[in-house]
């Protein structure tokens, strides 16, 4: 355990150093213009982090979701323009299903596809980030009530490019009778497929982006001078940034909470955790973007400043893999179905043990 902790800490530090050195506004702009950050990706894979979640017997580092949460959060904190989190999740799911992991960046799908008797997959994915630039997508297909992990070749699928808030290449996938490159059983996956995993990833990324936004606001508050003093001396600005800090703290806790729930290995836990995190992160993101742009004034919406690379990602991520409203509705419905007498028990989530 303490050895695991060390690997996790070392990995986090390495990734932080790499991202701090390599990721600049230029890199973001290039990625948004459609240029894949190949050099950055090679450095990442060289570190072995893409298979961090994969068990050691399958050649991975065997880390838990709790261990890798800091790395996923860094992906948000640096708005890393690479599908690192997606690839880690995809690799983990492939390995859990006993499949081989291609050594390339991977997309993942939050939808549940259909698997027909001839072993072909069909389904629609309204939006898959990175799909236009990648070879494969990993997702879950269902047949006769059983879930399967599938690896599909994107070239076999009709992919329609889409515009998003973050402007990272994304596509709608119309999957029609596609034979998977690989397919395997997925008893560890619940009815919602990989959606809780992706929702958790996005939540943790949002927590990272919020952390960065908070740091940017504090720095700006201390340096921008108006009316003869740094704006951070004005009580109105202080209170806005304090509110932002509250959301940022809650975001971190919520993201990690979702990771902890996936780590129990019980699909219902993973779904509950994702629902809690995505709901809380959505409201945090909405309030945080408003506060940050108010603190920064007009400068914050210009390309001369980094802020919008983070606020646009928050607008994107809160909507992906189920919006905060969708997940809140899921939580509310579940609570109603379980009945009021169970509400506190469900919240305390202690009796479940």
């Amino acid at each position, binding site marked *: 355990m303490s050895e695991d902790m060390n690997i996790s800490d070392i990995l986090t530090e390495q990734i932080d150093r790499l991202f701090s050195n390599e990721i600049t506004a230029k890199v973001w702009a290039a990625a948004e213009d459609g240029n894949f950050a190949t050099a950055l990706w090679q450095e990442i894979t060289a570190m072995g982090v893409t298979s961090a979640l994969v068990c050691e017997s399958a050649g991975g580092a065997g880390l838990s979701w709790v261990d890798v949460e800091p790395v996923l959060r860094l992906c948000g904190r640096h708005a890393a323009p690479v599908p690192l989190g997606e690839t880690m999740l995809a690799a983990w799911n492939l390995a859990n299903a006993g499949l081989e992991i291609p050594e390339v960046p991977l997309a993942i799908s939050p939808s549940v596809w259909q698997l027909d008797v001839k072993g072909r997959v069909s389904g629609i994915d*309204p939006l898959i980030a990175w799909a236009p630039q990648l070879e494969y997508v990993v997702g879950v297909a269902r047949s006769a009530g059983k879930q399967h992990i599938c690896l599909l070749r994107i070239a076999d699928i009709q992919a329609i490019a889409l*515009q998003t*808030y973050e402007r990272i290449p994304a596509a709608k996938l119309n999957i029609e009778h596609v034979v998977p490159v690989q397919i395997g059983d997925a008893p560890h996956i619940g009815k919602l497929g990989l959606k809780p995993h992706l929702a958790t990833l996005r939540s943790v990324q949002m927590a990272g982006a919020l952390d960065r936004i908070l740091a940017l606001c504090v720095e700006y508050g201390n340096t921008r001078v*108006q*009316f003869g003093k740094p704006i951070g001396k004005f009580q*109105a600005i202080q209170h806005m940034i304090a509110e932002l800090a509250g959301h940022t703290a809650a975001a971190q806790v919520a993201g990690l909470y979702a990771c902890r729930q996936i780590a129990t290995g019980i699909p219902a836990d993973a779904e509950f955790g994702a629902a809690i995190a995505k709901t809380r992160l959505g409201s945090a993101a*909405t309030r945080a973007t408003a506060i940050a742009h*108010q603190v920064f004034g*007009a400068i914050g919406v210009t390309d001369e400043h980094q802020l919008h690379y983070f*606020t646009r990602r928050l607008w994107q991520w809160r909507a992906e893999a189920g919006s905060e409203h969708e997940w809140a509705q899921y939580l509310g419905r579940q609570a109603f179905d379980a009945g009021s007498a169970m509400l506190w028990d469900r919240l305390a989530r202690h009796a479940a043990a």
Partner: protein
Amino acid sequence: MTTPFNFQPLELPAELLTLRREVRAFLADASSEWTGRDVGHSWTGFNREFSLEVGRRGWIGMTWPKRYGGHERSGLERYVVVEEMLAVGAPVGAHWFGDRQSGPLLLRMGTEAQRERFLPLIAQGKAAFCIGLSEPDSGSDLASLRSRATRVDGGWRLNGRKVWTTNAHLCDVMIGLFRTGGPAETEKHKGLSQFLIDMRASGIDVRPIRDLTGEAHFNEVTFDDVFVPDDMLVGREGEGWAQASAELAFERSQPDRYMSCFPLLPPAMDKLQELRLDDRLAERRLGESIAEMVVMREMSLSILGQLEAGRSPGQEAALVKDLGNTYEQRMPELVRELIDAPARINPDDRLSDLLGFLTQTVPTFSLRGGTREILRGIIAKGLGLR
């Protein structure tokens, strides 16, 4: 009974309905070509052709004297035209600043020659105006600006930089505020003057500022020894601060301070009815939005009436802008929740395109024309908080 503000009502006379219907018919036609993004821009969208057509119909400079190309119609008639334009998000940016701000400024403070030269061009939609106020180091703190006009033979030499000037790259004339007296450190509010600046003059460099929507309708304008002749000084030398402040106060209560997001509502209603999501949640949130909008419009109309009567309802205008911006800023989120908007922006779908654009631009709505913090400070002071 004492209350700290005055909002006596103004009823629009029934006879203005004819004008309203005329404008509406014109816009129903014109609007078919606009994208969601166009509609989102509205008064920041620059469409010279459209402005020329609006000018031909006599809907720019409506209240100005005929001898300056105006139409001597009432402020109420102008209001009807403006709100009809904003209700559909018409791309009025090419004549907006001239009609709303610079024209009235010249009428109040300009020389006869300035009026004769510029007002007819504005009214025809031919001269597009922009405003040069903010500078890199003076956002909310306008009085700290440093760009300087130095007296030279026959005029002035301008040096410095202006930022956030909407559509400067497309405009013909800027009204710019420059320091003509002592330095900002010692004479903050004193010694500023307004100038009419030909945007084609040599020494002016307009650099686009790309913003988060991927566009560049803001600009940075650099002045490098730009010559402005004497007769292009507006009003009195050294009185620019007071003149510009009066302008800001005027614009604060206008419909563009609460209607920027209104064009979201009708397509959102359609979508909700199509998806059968016109439920208790949607009904209530839509109803609240309607109530707030009606009340804000009444407040704005009241201020119009007071301005027409020659009063200066500065407090009231600040209140309306603060309420209006808060209202506008909430609307994209409201619509996003109600329709369960997906994670993409679809340029082929007007609602999606508009929602995507406004989500990214509403944060600036409480910055332009005086930030929330500035406005609330003004309001608190007006209430007598010492």
